[in-house]
């Protein structure tokens, strides 16, 4: 087993910053993953309010530019530095796994892949749930990281999860020490108070209790914006004043808004809040699982924490009784 002493952890980070972009949880007005300028900003154990997905799946992405009838792909800068993201929680890492499936498995999304390939993921295993909205321990999260740090007394125990991670450790070998310490099962997994009991919700689609949650939903789309796994997007063209030159762009989209399913001619398929609310939950817990064998939801709790009316869909589903 390897370890990094906490005493030398800052030196390690400073060393990293010399040749890499270092990104870590930073608290400003809200907490988010940011490019680190001063290592004093870093709060490694912080569970960020905003998700990490913006670093790979950008909010605004130019797909190609056009000039009359000539199309040109955006230039890929080979100069881009390697990135190291430190302090990813298990839920964050698992949401990256979900997005990797969407953007790199069947379809190779060049924009996502470019950002993903230059990034090393260094996790931080939570010692305790961040707050009452975390429910990750009921979501069967897997190991998906290049390196994982386990907070143990005056050191971080280090687990290597990939070839990329191994090469990274070799490069910074002077900070890593061999140790007799080892991880117990309880060091790896934390128990969250909130637990999603009924993960198979197939039978509940027409359950009357959905209404209880939908009645206090504003359809504001904070939940899908804050979700680290949600990957839906819009594509549209932007032109300059000549109307000839412009760019095709993609932006994050939100299934909670009526325009999400609006077709030419004006028909909206999911026109009610209930349809849209259920679509989100079913996509998170059932549709993605049917396709890829795991829930899209990783139990980070951001959609509950960021909801203006704190709709706790976990409690809502737990309370549903199957009436046949």
């Amino acid at each position, binding site marked *: 087993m390897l370890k990094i002493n906490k005493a030398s952890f800052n030196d390690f980070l400073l060393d990293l910053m010399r040749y890499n972009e270092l990104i870590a949880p930073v608290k400003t007005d809200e907490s988010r993953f940011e490019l680190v300028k001063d290592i004093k900003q870093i709060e490694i154990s912080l569970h960020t309010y905003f998700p990490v997905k913006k670093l790979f799946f950008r909010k605004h992405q130019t*797909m*190609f530019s*056009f000039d*009359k*009838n000539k*199309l040109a*792909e955006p230039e890929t800068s080979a100069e881009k530095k390697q990135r190291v993201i430190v302090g990813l929680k298990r839920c964050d890492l698992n949401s990256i796994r979900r997005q990797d499936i*969407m*953007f790199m498995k*069947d*379809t*190779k*999304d*060049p924009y996502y892949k470019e950002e993903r390939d230059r990034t090393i993921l260094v996790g931080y295993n939570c010692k305790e749930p961040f707050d009452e909205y975390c429910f990750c321990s009921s979501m069967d999260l897997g190991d998906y990281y290049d390196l994982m740090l386990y907070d143990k007394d005056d050191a971080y125990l280090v687990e290597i999860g990939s070839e990329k991670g191994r090469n990274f450790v070799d490069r910074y070998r002077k900070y890593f020490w061999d140790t007799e310490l080892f991880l117990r099962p309880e060091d790896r997994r934390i128990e969250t108070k909130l637990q999603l009991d009924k993960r198979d919700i197939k039978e509940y689609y027409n359950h009357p209790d959905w209404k209880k949650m939908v009645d206090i939903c504003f359809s504001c789309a904070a939940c899908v914006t804050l979700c680290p796994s949600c*990957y*839906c*997007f*819009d*594509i*549209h*063209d932007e*032109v300059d004043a000549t*109307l*000839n030159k*412009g760019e*095709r762009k*993609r932006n994050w*989209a939100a*299934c909670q808004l009526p325009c*999400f*399913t*609006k*077709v*030419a*001619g004006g*028909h909206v*398929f*999911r026109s009610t809040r209930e*349809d849209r609310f259920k*679509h989100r939950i*079913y*996509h998170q817990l*059932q*549709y993605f699982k*049917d*396709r890829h064998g795991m829930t899209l939801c990783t139990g980070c709790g951001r959609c509950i924490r960021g909801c203006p009316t704190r709709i706790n869909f976990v409690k809502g589903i737990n309370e549903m009784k199957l009436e046949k």
Partner: protein
Amino acid sequence: MPRVKTAKEEPEQQSANPYLPVSTKITSFKRESSDCFMIRIDFKTKHDPGQFVQLTLPGIGEAPISIASYSQEFMDLNIREVGNVTKALSKMKKGDTLFVRGPYGKGYPMDKLFGKELIVIGGGSGVAPLKGILSYVDKHKNNFGEVSLYFGFRTPEDILFKDEMRQWRNKYNLNLSVDKNPNKARISCDVCFITNLIEKAKLNPENKIVFICGPPMMMNITISILKNKGFKEEQIYVSTERLMQCALGICGHCMIHGKYTCLDGPVFRYDEIGQYTND
């Protein structure tokens, strides 16, 4: 005849960037009705009837259009002017350049239906993807039993593919209707909803396969009529419409209860989506 490979099985046929369309030219432009027109583009690719392509007009946007032909030499697209892109397309002419990517989606599984009798039901511009089926049947005449067509349009002026209709009337059992005839045009078809014709028709479900494409209301009514006549959901194929943007099964807009219209559809066997047609 082996099933033609779809775009998904041959991902390298275009640029490595799956979002980048290729340039193509319009080789013919024909107005079909006041709001519908047909363009033929010089885009040579293998495809199934019922698949679709994404057309790009730089600066206007991208729109999914179903393929109304079955040929590896050209591609016919019947387009109704309803959105920004289709309105701009309606102003184009022969020789103009546009951009295309595809084909996408699952079409009608024609090769799995050999030996069946076909009932093809279309409403308005929904007849366009069904035209691909008829081109396919033309090329594989001996593999199908009797073919019945039920096509409905709003008015006589809205009837699409008038030239082809004459041929189809000779070859197949064609049933044509218009909802109303406000200009008192001389027509040789019924003035009623197409669903009334289906209701009246003596249809025996045995060894039949039904293809439906049209407005949601017309499809729902047709399906309930067919079910009353003893048809099973497994015998019915529907072609669905949704907002489609990436056409690659990522962007999420076209999802119907977990199924992507652009990957698993746009043609679904009715029991696959059944009760969720409004999702």
